[in-house]
Every structure is written in structure tokens, then in C-alpha cells.
């Protein structure tokens, strides 16, 4: 019952976010600030993780392809499929749920605790629109981050394969081009848009409706990370079934 109430409250929150918009002149600057904080601010960690995950996937694939009859190009093929289909959109989203999600929950939660949200409401500002809408728009840049993650992940795989002596560069690149289906990239980008919406709204919900003091802000950040991850994983299953099934 508690969960049903929370789900209902979440959807009411989403509805409120799009009501009574803030002036565009103000909203524009808020969006640009959020793009900087939420997307560009997370690029460093996305690039770092993607590079090494790409490398690890390649090494593990290479170490499991022990049969000499299997071509080395399969290493590139497996790395490409893993990175594009799953690691770039889903794994990066889970990381973003931790980094960006906890930032959103704690910043909105702190505003709640220090009565800044009450101050907005008293002034007649639609606080949900003012606080959450720019975050939703900003994270719509997230497919760009996922595209970068795909490129860096595959580059990491190539570096691991070539410099680790698992496959020659030509074979790896041949594997990357093998049976390439462009829809897989589209599928990954569609997923990343949905995950971005979840990353912006679920942590906002936990921050906006939190009660208590500083300790509860920390607890809300942790809860928000758990729930954002759970929702991403369930949505990932549903989207995969719908788009590829």
C-alpha cells in the first residue's frame, strides 16, 4: 500500500512539474547550469569507467575464446555488442544514478530542510517546475554522454586487445564491423533517454518529499540511489523485450 501511494505521488509530481512554467528567460539559465552540473560534470567519470569496462570485456572475451577455430575478430564483435547494447546505456546509467541521482536528492533535500522550497511556494513559484524541469531537460543530453561512452568503451577494448596481445588491430576492427545493425545503437539511445528521465525524476521525488533534517538528507540519497537503480533495471528489461524481443 505504501509503495502504491509512493508511485501515485511520483506521477502526481511529474504532472505538477509541467504545470505553470517558470519564465523562459530564467528557465534557460537554469537548464544551462544543470547541463553543466549533471551532464558535463559527469563526463570525466563516464569516460574513465567506459574505457576500462571496454578493456575488461575484451580481455574476458579473449580469455574465453580458447578454441583456435574461432576467429579473433569475434573479440571485437563481442566487445562491440556488449558495450553498445548494455554497458554504455545501462551500466553508465547505474553510475549516473549514484553520481547525479544522489546530487539531485541531496541538493533538493537540503532545500527542503532549510525551508528554501517553502520560500519558493510562499512566493507563488511552482517549486517543482523551477527545481525539477531544468534537470529533466538537462539530462535529455544524456544520449550524447552514452554515445561518448560507446566510443570510449570500444576504444578501451581495442587498446586492451591490441596492446594486450589478444588480437591484431585489423581483426578487432573487422569484428567491430561484422553484422553491424544500426538499430542496436538506436535501441541503446532510446534506452538512455528513458533512463535519463528516471535519473532526473526519481531522485527529485526523494529529495522533494523528504522529511527531517541533515541525517535524513543522507538517508534519502541512499534510498534514491537504490530505487533509481531498481527502476532502471526493471525498465531495461521491459524496453529490451519491447524493442528487441
Amino acid at each position, binding site marked *: 500500500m505504501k509503495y502504491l501511494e509512493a508511485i501515485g505521488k511520483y506521477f502526481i509530481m511529474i504532472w505538477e512539474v509541467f504545470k*505553470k512554467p517558470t*519564465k523562459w528567460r530564467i528557465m534557460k539559465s537554469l537548464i544551462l547550469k544543470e547541463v553543466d552540473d549533471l551532464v558535463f560534470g559527469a563526463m570525466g567519470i563516464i569516460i574513465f569507467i567506459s574505457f576500462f569496462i571496454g578493456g575488461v570485456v575484451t580481455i574476458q572475451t579473449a580469455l574465453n575464446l580458447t578454441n583456435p577455430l574461432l576467429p579473433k575478430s569475434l573479440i571485437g564483435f563481442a566487445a562491440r555488442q556488449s558495450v553498445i547494447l548494455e554497458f554504455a546505456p545501462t551500466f553508465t546509467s547505474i553510475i549516473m544514478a549514484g553520481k547525479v541521482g544522489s546530487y539531485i536528492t541531496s541538493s533538493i533535500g537540503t532545500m527542503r530542510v532549510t525551508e*528554501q522550497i517553502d520560500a519558493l511556494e510562499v512566493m507563488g513559484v511552482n517549486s517543482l517546475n523551477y527545481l525539477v524541469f531544468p534537470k529533466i531537460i538537462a539530462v535529455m543530453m544524456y544520449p550524447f554522454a552514452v554515445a561518448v561512452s560507446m566510443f570510449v568503451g570500444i576504444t578501451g577494448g581495442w587498446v586492451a586487445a591490441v596492446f594486450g596481445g589478444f588480437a591484431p588491430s585489423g581483426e578487432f576492427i573487422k569484428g567491430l564491423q561484422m553484422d553491424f545493425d544500426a538499430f542496436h545503437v538506436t535501441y541503446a539511445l532510446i534506452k538512455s533517454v528513458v533512463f535519463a528521465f528516471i535519473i532526473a525524476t526519481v531522485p527529485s521525488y526523494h529529495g522533494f518529499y523528504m522529511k527531517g533534517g541533515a541525517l535524513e538528507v543522507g538517508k534519502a540519497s541512499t534510498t534514491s540511489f537504490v530505487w533509481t537503480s531498481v527502476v532502471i533495471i526493471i525498465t531495461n528489461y521491459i524496453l529490451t523485450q519491447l524493442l528487441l524481443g
Partner: protein
Amino acid sequence: MIEVDNIHKSFGEHHVLKGISTSFEKGKTNLIIGQSGSGKTVFLKCLLGLFEPDEGNICYNGRFYSELSTKDRRNLRQEMGMVFQGSALFDSMTVEGNVMFPLDMFTNQSRSEKQDRVDFVLKRVNLIDAHKKYPSEISGGMQKRVAIARAIVMNPKYLFCDEPNSGLDPKTAILIDNLIHEITTEYDITTIINTHDMNSVMEIGEKILFLKNGYKEWEGTNKEIFKTDNQAVTDFVYSSELFKKVRQMYLEERN
């Protein structure tokens, strides 16, 4: 003027406000006092429109809150200024940004017009060199003054203050009290202050409303509070030895 008619408010089974009726006059400093848990904050939030009463009505210069549309309610809120207990300044904005915020949100004034208005109100609250500082870089007393400046920048008709001098030293607390009182008279605002500070009660309480367990126990002026024989009021207001002596001296002087 704000007229309150028999308002009730409950949270679950907890009946917080139990039929409060009163009125707050324009141009006067009205104080709400009472023990913690007496319903002061809930009452103030009902007046602000943050909580909707379960029963009863609140009328703002002839406009019944319960009868207003969502749009009219938002417009009414733009006639209100609020000074929160913890100031509630936006951390990410400078002092100037905080005070300019309502002007940015609700007016179409040019940059220079807004700047002039911000300079004027900051000067009015005696803050001259803090424009570019962030809330974390200024003292608690200065934060309160910024909060007052932000609350009055839109020329509100109603000013609400939730414990405006809590956490301040006695000298700064008196400065803040006097500033609120001066602004109330100067701009003819209906000011309602939620306070525990008995010094404020004695100094600026042109009307005092005493709440006890969600009921209106007593109301009167700061002159009448000296004379009242209401046990609950005297127990609360004159709980300190100092105030007991002040009251005794006042009554002896009168006799």
C-alpha cells in the same frame, strides 16, 4: 486586514488547530505566541496558504481563500512576504540575487529598475556592502536582514515572520524587531510574527494572540498583557524572574 473564522486543522488523528477566530489589522505588528506544540507554526502556515484548513475560513481584504482559484491563490501569494526562522536564503545566489529573485520571477522590469529596487531595499535594511556575498559568507543577523529585504522587495500587503530573531544575540534581535516594526508602519503592511521572544512581545506587540493546545487562549495588546489575570498567559509570558519583576514594577507603578 486578515480575518480568520473558526479554523480547524488536523493531521491524521492529531487535531492541531481547534476553532481559532481572530483578525489582524493593517499597519500593525501582530504577534502569535504560545508554547512549542501549541499550533503556532501550523496556524502561520494556514495563513500563508501552505496548509489548507479542514474547516473555517481565512479572508484577505475581502477575499476568502477557500473560494479563490489556483491562479488567484498564486497571485495572492505574490502579495505576501515571508521571513523564515532559518532565513531560507537560496545558497546558490548572492545576497543581491536572493533579493532580486521575486522581481525576476514576477515582474517585467528592466535590469536597471530591478537593480535600483534591490539597492533601495538593501539600504532600507541597513545592508550596504553585502550585495555580492553569498548567504554562507554573512552573519545570522545579516541573513535575517536579507530575508526581510527579499520579503519586502515586491511591496507585499502581508508580511509573515517565523521566529525572526531566534538564534540572534539580544542586540541584533532588537534591531530586527525594530526593523520589522518600522517597515510595517512605513509601508502599511499587515505583519504577523510567530515568536517565543518575550522581549518582542513587550516591545512591538501591538496585537498579541496567545495559543494553547490549538485554542485561542487570549488576545490583546502589549499593554494589556501586563494587566491580564489569565493564568496560562501569565505562566507563559512571566515564566522568567526578570519578566515577573518587570510586571510587578509596572503594576505597582499603575497603582
